[in-house]
């Protein structure tokens, strides 16, 4: 409460204030004071515990351990599924300090006013963040993909704002941490032919051996990729369908389900791994680390690049509104640390991408960087994060380099305006 009061007088003057802050940020960066580990604060930061929750993909204990080592305070992590994350973020804002959420979840959660924006000037490596999250363009020429592109929900005009700003400002909603381009996972030993398009998911040859993920906002997007690939429907915006488009997509899914195309629907990471590893499914929507998990079991699995491009997603760290004082300082420390390299390298090695590439590169070997980020053949064996063999020397990452993959994004995970209607229709599909 006291915090809110303290903020209030500042708001009317925000325009001038922002310009000042901008200048200050520029000065700070210009002075070369970018170490990632300021040492200004007192020893009592060791007593701070930050509670973070997010999806299983990034709630990784080694990160918490490294935070303890590098920063001294405790980070406790809770992993939930995507839907539960949204729910927790909105309904139990006091139960967490750091929300590790996806950008499309942010679009839903932000208007509820449970998070506070972060001051850009306190983010040391802001200028090094991959521009996908700031301007939306990977390279100045790249087109902006459909769906909830991260930059559209990355900024707000002022501290109390619940509406997103269409351009970069001094207040960021989430600091990007982790993102990737998703496609279909296949079992090359069991599909028996090359897979090139999204429409292969509904090829009758894979009847009873295909799966799609049962998270409505993402599942419908995969279905849309399939529909466009088949040529049955062209969407205005796959990330923001009209009712008619939703109806046709769901009708198509129901038809496929009745025909017995799908073996199962999965909702969590480990379900997708088990479906694939056990051979119940040979082609399905999948997340990159799930492919990695199947491969480290010694089972062949390919994250197949497809002609129509990728469905991308991104996540970031948001700070709960109730955070202030020392805890808030610790949160900024943590976020700056997240971008400072160790973490980025750790995530890149799992097949994700980190928000600041330069710093991550310094924490990776040349061979690792070449394999994961540049699409080069591995000069030596590539090990997984757990130390098990992931790929042999000479092999190339599925889909190639960072720019090859992130440059071919067809749409981003999203929340539609017709969200409520879409979810009702999706439930019909599951019940059909």
């Amino acid at each position, binding site marked *: 409460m006291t915090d809110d009061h303290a903020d209030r007088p500042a708001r009317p003057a925000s325009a001038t204030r922002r310009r000042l802050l901008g200048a200050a940020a520029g000065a700070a960066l210009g002075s070369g004071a970018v170490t990632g580990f300021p040492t200004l604060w007192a020893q009592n930061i060791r007593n701070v515990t930050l509670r973070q929750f997010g999806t299983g993909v990034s709630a990784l204990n080694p990160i918490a351990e490294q935070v303890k080592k590098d920063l001294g305070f405790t980070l406790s992590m809770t992993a939930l599924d995507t839907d539960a994350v949204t729910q927790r973020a909105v309904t139990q804002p006091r139960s967490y300090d750091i929300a590790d959420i996806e950008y499309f979840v942010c679009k839903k959660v932000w208007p509820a006013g449970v998070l506070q924006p972060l001051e850009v000037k306190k983010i040391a490596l802001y200028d090094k963040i991959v521009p996908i999250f700031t301007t939306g363009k990977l390279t100045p020429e790249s087109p902006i993909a459909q769906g909830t592109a991260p930059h559209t929900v990355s900024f707000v005009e002022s501290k109390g704002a619940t509406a997103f700003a269409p351009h970069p400002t001094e207040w960021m909603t989430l600091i990007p941490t982790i993102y990737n381009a998703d496609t279909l996972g296949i079992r090359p030993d069991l599909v028996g032919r090359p897979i090139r398009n999204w429409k292969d998911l509904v090829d009758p040859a894979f009847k009873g051996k295909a799966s799609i993920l049962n998270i409505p906002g993402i599942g419908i997007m995969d279905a849309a990729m399939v529909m466009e690939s088949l040529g049955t429907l062209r969407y205005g915006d796959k990330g923001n369908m009209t009712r008619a488009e939703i109806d046709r997509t769901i009708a198509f899914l129901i038809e496929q389900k009745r025909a017995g195309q799908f073996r199962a*629907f999965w*909702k969590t990471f480990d379900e997708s791994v088990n479906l694939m590893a*056990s051979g119940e499914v040979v082609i399905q929507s999948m997340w990159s680390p799930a492919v990695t998990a199947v491969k480290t079991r010694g089972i062949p699995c390919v994250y197949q690049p497809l002609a129509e491009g990728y469905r991308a997603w991104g996540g970031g760290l948001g700070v709960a509104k109730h955070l202030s004082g020392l805890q808030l300082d610790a949160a900024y420390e943590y976020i700056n640390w997240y971008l400072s390299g160790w973490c980025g390298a750790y995530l890149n090695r799992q097949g994700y991408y980190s928000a600041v590439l330069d710093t991550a590169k310094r924490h990776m070997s040349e061979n690792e960087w070449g394999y994961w980020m540049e699409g080069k053949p591995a000069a030596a064996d590539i090990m997984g994060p757990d130390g098990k063999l992931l790929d042999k020397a000479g092999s190339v990452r599925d889909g190639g380099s960072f720019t090859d993959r992130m440059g071919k994004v067809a749409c981003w995970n999203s*929340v539609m305006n017709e969200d409520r209607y879409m979810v009702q229709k999706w439930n*019909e599909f599951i019940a*059909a």
Partner: protein
Amino acid sequence: MAGSGTAARLLPYLQVAPLALILGVFLVVPILTLVVVSFFDYDSVRIIPDFVWTNYAEVLLSAVTWRTYAKTVWFAALVWAITLFIGFWVAYFLAFHVRSRTVQTALFLLCTIPFWTSNIIRMISWVPFLGRNGLLNQALLGLGAIDRPLEFLLFSDFAVVLAFVHLYTLFMVVPIFNTMMRIDRRLVEAAVDAGANAWQVLTNVIIPLSKPGIAIGSIFVVVLVMGDFITVRLMSGGQSASVGLMIYNQISLLQYPAAAANAVVLLAIVLLMVGAILRVVDIRREL
């Protein structure tokens, strides 16, 4: 004198107060909240206090709801019939065939051993057994009984019913066994002396006297199956729907008012089913 009279009149109220308080706070208030919320409006992140009928309209006027309810009732009926059959005979065996008390207790405890692990573990353990490359399919293929894996074993209605039966049969066994143990053995002797054969003893003596146990077991099983969501989701591979799963999906998508309306409808239907069971059997008579 007047004072002590008031005290005497107040005493019973005082005595029921703790229970009334607990039930009030933990049962009545939540249910009332549920009913109130079921009339609220909502968007993708917020619940908006209001009084609208749209949640009920969406629940009751949608063909999907009816299909889902039909499916859930069908699961409940099938599971009820199978667990009743198995449960009755297991209880019958324990109560009438096993003579020694010690053996009886030992066998009864044996029935409860699976309950030492969690519900979910017991359910998940079917997955590697029933899968396409699972133990059962490999065994059958090895024996030459089939030439391609049986796909219906997992991620199907069969798997759902199998898991339900596995999970809930004990809820049938226990109450039936309990009532059977209370049957006065002299009634069975009298029936035999009066010339009844085994079948007649069963249908005229044991089944009528076991009715309260059957009713209690039935209530357990029906209520558990009607409200389930996790078994249906895991064993059908997300392909089948149940009312509980529908509510779960709505909750996870923050559609609390819709979930509340659905829950109120489910509660009404389950209460009707329990009422119907109690109508047929007076469980108090034999307790």
